[in-house]
Every structure is written in C-alpha cells, then in structure tokens.
C-alpha cells in the first residue's frame, strides 16, 4: 500500500493554497489597523534615524553659544538648545540612541527572559533558584541598581542597556514562565515526552514557540519602557552620557528651561510619545496577527 501516484493537480493546488494563504495574511495585516499604524510609525522613526545625516543640516554636537535657546525657525526647524545645538538634528540622532537602547534592551531581555523563564518552568529546582533571585531583584530599588552599575562599569551607553536589562528581565522571565507552565501541561508536550524527546527538545521545540505571543507583547512593552527609563536615568544623572543625544537627555536638558523654551521639551517628547505608542500598537497588533487561533471561532 505504498505511495500512490500524486494526483496531478496536487502541485498546482499547493501553490494556490500558499498564494491564498499569503494574500489572506496580507489582508489580515491590512485589516489589523494596529499593526498598520504602529508599524508605520515605527518604520518612519527608524528610517529617519537611519537617514539622519541626509535629513539634517547640522551635526547634533555643533555648538554655537551665541545661538542658544532660539525658537524654531527656518534654519533650526525645532529651535536650538542651551548650547545652541540644533534640536532637530539632536532629536533625529537621538532616535538612533533611544531606539538602539530600546531595541537592544528588548532583544536581550527577551532572550534572557525566554531562557530563564523556560528553564524555570521546566525544572523545579531552577524555578526556586531563579524565582528567588527574581524576587530579590524585583524587590531591589531599580534606580539604585542602575546608578551602581553605571558607577561600577563606567558611564557608557552599553551600561545603560545592561542596567535596564537587569531591571526588566525578571518581569519578562516571569511572564514567560507562567505562559510556559500552561503550555507545559498541554498534551502535545506530553506527547513529545512519550516519544522520548530530550528536555532540550521539548523546551525549545515544543514549549518555546508557544510562549512567543505573550513574550512579544511584553517585549514591545519593555522596548518603550526602556526608553522612558533611560530618560529617568538621565534625570538622575545616570543616563546616556552626553553629548551623545538621546531623547531622554534632550528632555532632561529641556526640563530646566521648560518655561522659556518649550521646543526643547515638546519635540523630543513628541517623538518619544510616538515611539511608545507605535511600538505598543505594533506589539498588540502582532499578538493578534501571529495567533491565528484567536481568529477562529471556538471549536465544539
């Protein structure tokens, strides 16, 4: 009873199905307003950050002390700051730093959180150890951690990232862990075990793909939160070491002149807000998108 000859139209059919699936996917993406809007915003910001040298006339560092705190005008579209630097270029270059911080924190916490969460959910002993450490870290005042890390390791952007990663990872790990605990009880995990799959395989091939949904949502949240944290760290003097512009330290510089130079706060603030909004929309939308089951009506 071996393989019968494939029906001739199977190949054609396969292509059609793939095409149809793709078009359905595209339709779903379009239908999902959150993804479109959020993705659009993020794309725009990212592109302008990447194209920063092309769209700005000034470097973000050029000082012009006589030109300090000039309101927006034809040469300085967003005005100048307290050093006479062009805010537009600082905001656009600042997007690089802020997005880089957000992105690297999101990626690293995502990976770490996934790793810790997965193993904690799988091994009871590790669970106790990891979760006690997580408890400890969560109970730890995060600002202290950040300042201490910056002080110990030196004021570099990478250390800002490390500090925020340490603060944010326990939360992500917990989310992954609780999702994984649910997935772990699913029959298909048991099925894999019944076949003798190794723990490694079960964890990474069966459980992990199924905790991605909450992870993605959490990561987009971390992405935006870390940009805000970076700003707060600037406020406490432990942020991205200037003169490197970041939205956080532009905002902080602007804070003291908020009554006289609104443009120093409004523009970076607006960009920060847009990025946070965009990434959250994108995250929520992606959740709906990558989870086809959520679109299906319930089964019997």
């Amino acid at each position, binding site marked *: 009873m071996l393989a019968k000859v494939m029906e001739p139209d199977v190949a054609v059919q396969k292509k059609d199905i793939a095409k149809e699936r793709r078009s359905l996917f595209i339709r779903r993406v379009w239908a999902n307003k959150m993804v479109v809007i959020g993705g659009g915003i993020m794309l725009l910001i990212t592109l302008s950050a990447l194209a920063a040298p092309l769209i700005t006339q000034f470097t973000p560092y050029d000082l012009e002390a006589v030109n300090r705190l000039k309101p927006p005008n034809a040469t300085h579209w967003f005005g100048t700051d307290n050093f006479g630097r062009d805010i537009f270029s600082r905001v656009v270059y600042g997007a690089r730093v802020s997005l880089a911080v957000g992105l690297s924190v999101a990626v690293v916490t995502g990976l770490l959180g996934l790793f810790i969460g997965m193993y904690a959910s799988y091994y009871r002993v590790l669970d106790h150890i990891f979760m*006690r*450490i997580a*408890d*400890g870290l*969560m*109970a*730890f*005042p*995060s*600002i*202290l*951690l950040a*300042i*201490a890390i910056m*002080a*110990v390791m030196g004021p570099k952007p990478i250390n800002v990232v490390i500090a925020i990663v340490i603060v944010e990872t326990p939360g992500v790990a917990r989310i992954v862990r609780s999702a994984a605990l649910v997935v772990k009880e699913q029959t298909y995990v048991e099925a894999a075990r019944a076949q003798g799959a190794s723990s490694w395989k079960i964890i990474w091939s069966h459980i992990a793909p199924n905790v991605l949904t909450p992870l993605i949502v959490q990561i987009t949240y971390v992405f*935006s*939160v870390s940009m*805000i944290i970076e*700003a*707060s760290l600037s*406020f*406490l003097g432990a942020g991205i070491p200037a003169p490197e512009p970041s939205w*956080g330290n532009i*905002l*902080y510089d602007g*804070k003291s002149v*908020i*009554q006289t130079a609104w443009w120093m*706060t409004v523009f970076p*603030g607006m960009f*920060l*807000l847009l990025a*946070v*909004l965009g990434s*959250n929309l994108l995250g929520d939308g992606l959740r709906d998108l990558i989870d086809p089951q959520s679109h299906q009506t319930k089964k019997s």
Partner: protein
Amino acid sequence: MKIYILQRLLSLIPVMLVVAIVVFFLIHLTPGDPASIILGPDALPEDIQALRKELGLDLPLYQQFFSWFSGVLIGDLGDSLYLDMPVLKAFTSHLAPTLSLAILAQLISIVIAIPFGVIAATKRGTTVDQFFMVFALLGISIPSFLLGLLLILLFAVELRWLPAAGYQPLSAGLWNHLKFLLLPAITLGAIQSALIARMTRSSMLDILSMNYIKTAHAKGLKEKVIIYKHAFRNAFIPILTVIGQAFGTLVAGAVVTEVVFNIPGLGQLIVNAIQRRDYVLIQGTVLLIAGTYVLINLLVDLLYGIVDPRIRLNRK
C-alpha cells in the same frame, strides 16, 4: 492559614539573603567613598583616610560584611553614616510619606484605570476602545519628571491651586497632607493607570467570553449587572496582581517623582544615600524595602482569598 503565613515569612529569608549580599558587594564595589563625601569636595586625602579608618572602611570587605550582617541577624541595622540616626529610624521616618503617596497614587490609578479598562473591554474594537487605550498609553509615554514638572507649572505656578512641592505629615491635617501629595500622586497614577487599564481590559475580555457570563445573560440580567457584578469580580484577580506589583514598586520608591516634588520618602532617602555613599543606610534600607515588598506580595496573595473563594486558605 497561620502555617501558610509562617511559611511565606520563612521564604523571605533567602530573598533577603540574596538582597543583602548583592547590595553589600554592589555598593562596596561602587567607586565613591562616604568619607570623602562627608568631608566635602575640597577635603584633603589625609583627612579622608582618617575618617575612613574611623568608619571602619579600611577593613577587608568580607570582614565588613560579616560585622554588618551579624548585626542584621540580631536586628541591628546600624547607624547611618551621614544622617545622624539609626537606619531603622531613617527608614520608618521616610516610609510614611512614601506609603501615603503610594496609596493615593494607587487609588487615583484605580479610579481612572478600571472604568477605562472595563469600558474599553465592553466596547472592544470600537473607537471608544481605541481612544481609551491610546489615552492609557499616554500615561506611560511621558517620563515622570516631565509630567511632574508640567503638573507643577499648571496647577501650582499658573493656577495656584496646589503647592509646588514639599510634604506635610498627616498630623498637620488631612487636607494639608493631601494637597502636597495630590500632584505627585497624579504623576505616578498616570503611569500605573496605563498598566492597570490594559490589564483590566484584557482580563475583562477573557472573562466576558466565559460560559458563566452567558449563563448570566440567559438569566435576563442587565448588561451593567453582568459586567460589574459577574464579570468584574472575576476579572479583578489578575488585576490585583498588577496592582500588588505596582504598589510594591511604588513603595520601593518612586525616586524621580519624589525628587521632583521633594517628598521625603524612601526614594529620596535611597538616592541621597547613594549619592552620599552612605553604605550602612543603603544596605539597611534596601533590605527593609525588599522585606516590605515581599510582605506586600504576601498581603496581595492573602487578598486573593477574599476576592476568589477558590483560593481561600482556611478551607479544605
């Protein structure tokens, strides 16, 4: 029940140990030296050395750790190097403003967030839903130092409704107490309410698709009754977790907000302690904050039992 609480309290020990070790070595490895801070920027090296010796900072690190930790074990957290008081006293005197602020902020965020979340959930997919959720997002998109400052400029400097900054204890009268806390509480509440509103929405959505909601509809109940009496109480359980955690972080110190509004709370205590490298105070405060945090979580867990009969501890 008692045994359970006891077990939970025992589980505090490893957490505290982790925190103690981390904080001690973190802070001692951090450059900066309490002696030179106390003596000021123009102090001479000899003076600083002398003070270091007096404060016991010249001993090997492990020796310092053990002498500190053995004190902690018998309940002696030591005296602040900078503030002229025992750590415990510094902690308790800074706890009250923080607690007041945290409670008020939490109340504000709950009052805003829960209706937002519930309405957004019941109107899922509509413009109302999207509007509320975007509004909630605004709360987390503005750094708190900025939001705080804007509130000060609007309500204190422009409108003169509320004081710009500072703190009055409850003993100075309720209104006196509250008027200083209102703006910072709104600042913090805005952030928290964003989180809580989102959680409320998704939790409500889960519950609204439950079978017992259908049962309630089939009984002929009004929509409002179903949402608030049947759905909300069930949806509240995960919300409670978020609230508990949020409260925990608030108590651990809303550093930035406390600095902006000059509230003498734990956040300021710890930031000042860090800036002054007040080792003993940092160590002690962090330990106590961690303890408080764990206790709050325990409290939240016990609250679960009240909200959800399935988790009542004293029943079989």
